[in-house]
C-alpha cells in the first residue's frame, strides 16, 4: 500500500490497512537499533523539531533517538505555556518553525486538538505526540506493536486498559487502534474516571479489576495523575491501589497465566502497579520503550515520504 498522509494526528483517523502498514514498517526498523552502528541515512538532511509544551522526557527522548537513528537533525523546543502566560501563539510558532525549513514537527500539547490547529496552518508534517485527553498515537502504536510481537496477532486478543480512562489520551488511541485491528478491549476504572459514553468506542466497561484481568491476554496500566483534574473528585492514592492496583495476587487469579503487563510510563510504583509486578517476567514495560524507537522511526519515515507521493 501507499502511505499518503503528511500528518499523524490520531489513530481514529487511520484505516486498518494503514495501521498494519505502520506496524510492518516498524518491524523492519527494529533491526536498525540492534546494529553496531545504529543509524541509517534515510532522513539525512531533514530536520525534525520536537515542539513540547508539556514536560515529557520519555516521549521526547524516544522521538529524538528515532529521528537521529534516521540521520535527521533534531531540534528540541520546550515551550512554556499556561493560560495566564500569553506567549507566542501555536500558529505563529509553527510558522516560524516552517520558515526555518524544518520538515517535521512533533507536537506535545496539553490542549486536545492542537495538532489539528497546527496542521491547518503549516505545510510541513505534524506528528501528534500527545494532545490533552485526545490522542497519543505513537504510544498506542508501540503498545500494539509490543502486543503483536508477544502474541503474533491482535485479532481476537483481550486487552484491558486500567486507570484514569477519562483523562487519558493513551487509552483513547489504544482503543481506536486495538478495536480496528480486531482486539476486544475492556476499560476498567472507578466510575468517576470513565468518560461519558465511552462504550460507543466499542469497549466493555467494568469497575471490577479482577473481572478486567480474568479474561485478559494483556493489561495496559495507565499512569494515575491525581493532580491533573481539579474539578472531578479523585480517589485517595491508597484507596486506588487497594481497589485497582495491579498486584501479584490479582495476576495469579487471571485465566491466562502468561498475561502480559504494559505501562506507558513513568510508573507510580505502589499506586497503579505493585513494584514486584513492574519487575516480573510478565512485564514488558522496557520492551515497550525499545519498540517505541522502531515505531517512531517508522512514523517519521512514512510522513517524510508522503510528500513525494503527492
Amino acid at each position, binding site marked *: 500500500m*501507499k*502511505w499518503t498522509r503528511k500528518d499523524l494526528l490520531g489513530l481514529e483517523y487511520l484505516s486498518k490497512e494503514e495501521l498494519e502498514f505502520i506496524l510492518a*514498517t516498524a*518491524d*523492519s*526498523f527494529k*533491526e*536498525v537499533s540492534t*546494529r*553496531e*552502528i545504529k*543509524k*541509517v*541515512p*534515510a532522513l539525512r538532511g531533514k530536520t525534525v523539531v520536537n515542539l513540547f509544551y508539556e514536560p515529557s522526557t520519555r516521549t521526547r527522548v524516544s522521538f529524538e533517538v528515532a529521528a537521529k537513528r*534516521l540521520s535527521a537533525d533534531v531540534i528540541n523546543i520546550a515551550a512554556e505555556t499556561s493560560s495566564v502566560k500569553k506567549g507566542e501563539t501555536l500558529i505563529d510558532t509553527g510558522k516560524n518553525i516552517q520558515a526555518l525549513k524544518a520538515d517535521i514537527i512533533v507536537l506535545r500539547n496539553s490542549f486536545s486538538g492542537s495538532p489539528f490547529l497546527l496542521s491547518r496552518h503549516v505545510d510541513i508534517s505534524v506528528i501528534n505526540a500527545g494532545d490533552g485527553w485526545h490522542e497519543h498515537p505513537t504510544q498506542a502504536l508501540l503498545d500494539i506493536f509490543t502486543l503483536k510481537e508477544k502474541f503474533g496477532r491482535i485479532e481476537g486478543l483481550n486487552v484491558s486498559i486500567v486507570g484514569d480512562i477519562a483523562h487519558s489520551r493513551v487509552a483513547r488511541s489504544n482503543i481506536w487502534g486495538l478495536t480496528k485491528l480486531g482486539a476486544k478491549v475492556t476499560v476498567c476504572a472507578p466510575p468517576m474516571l470513565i468518560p461519558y459514553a465511552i462504550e460507543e468506542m466499542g469497549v466493555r466497561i467494568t469497575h471490577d479489576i479482577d473481572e478486567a484481568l480474568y479474561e485478559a491476554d494483556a493489561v495496559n496500566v495507565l499512569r494515575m495523575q491525581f493532580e491533573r483534574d481539579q474539578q472531578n473528585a479523585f480517589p485517595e492514592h491508597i484507596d486506588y491501589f487497594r481497589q485497582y492496583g495491579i498486584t501479584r495476587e490479582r495476576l495469579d487469579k487471571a485465566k491466562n497465566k502468561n498475561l502480559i503487563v504494559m505501562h506507558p510510563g513513568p510508573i507510580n510504583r505502589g499506586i497503579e502497579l505493585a513494584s514486584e509486578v513492574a519487575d516480573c517476567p510478565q512485564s514488558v514495560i522496557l520492551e515497550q520503550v525499545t519498540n517505541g524507537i522502531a515505531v517512531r522511526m*517508522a512514523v517519521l*519515515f512514512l510522513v517524510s*515520504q*508522503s510528500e*513525494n*507521493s503527492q
Partner: protein
Amino acid sequence: MKEKTKILDKESINRILNRMAHEILEKNKGTGELCIIGIRTHGAFLASRMGTRIKLIENKEVPVGILDITLYRDDLTLISSQPVVHKTEIDFDITGKHVILVDDVLYTGRTVRAALDALVDFGRPTTIQLAVLIDRGHRELPIRPDYVGKNIPTAQQETIEVRMEESEGIDEVVIIEKSHLPS
C-alpha cells in the same frame, strides 16, 4: 505491441549460477571467511541459491544474509512509487569476511552504492565483491562487478526484467521496451 525478448530461461540461469559459484570459490580459494549477502528482493533469492550451490560443491555452509537498501537510497525523493521498507537480515558479523554482494541487474550502480554504505555500517569486511546476474551497462558511478552472469548491452529506453520462481513463479530474464511499459 508488447515487444518482449527472452534473454535467459530457467536452464541458462542455472548454468550461469553454477559457473559463478565456481568462479567465486576459485577466486576466494574455498569457503573460508566467505559470506553471501543479497540485495532485496531478487538479489536475496540469488544469494540463497548461490549459498545452496556452494554447499553442494564444497559441502560447507556459507552464511547468507539479506540487505534492504531502501533507507540508503539516494533517490528517495525522486522515485514516484513509494518504497516499502523491509527487514535487513544479517545475523552474522561481517568484519574480516569476504562479502559476496549479490544483485540481479547492475545498471547505474546506485543500488550497489547504497548497499556498500549499508554494509560498512554493519562492520569492516576484508573485501566486498560484487556478483550480478545481468550487467546492462549505463553506469553513473565508478562501480564494476567481479562476477557477471551475462552482459546484455541495452538502450536506455529498454528495461530488463528478472523473474524468479520465488516471487514471479518462473525463472526468466526478458527485455522490455520502456515505451510499452505502463507508466
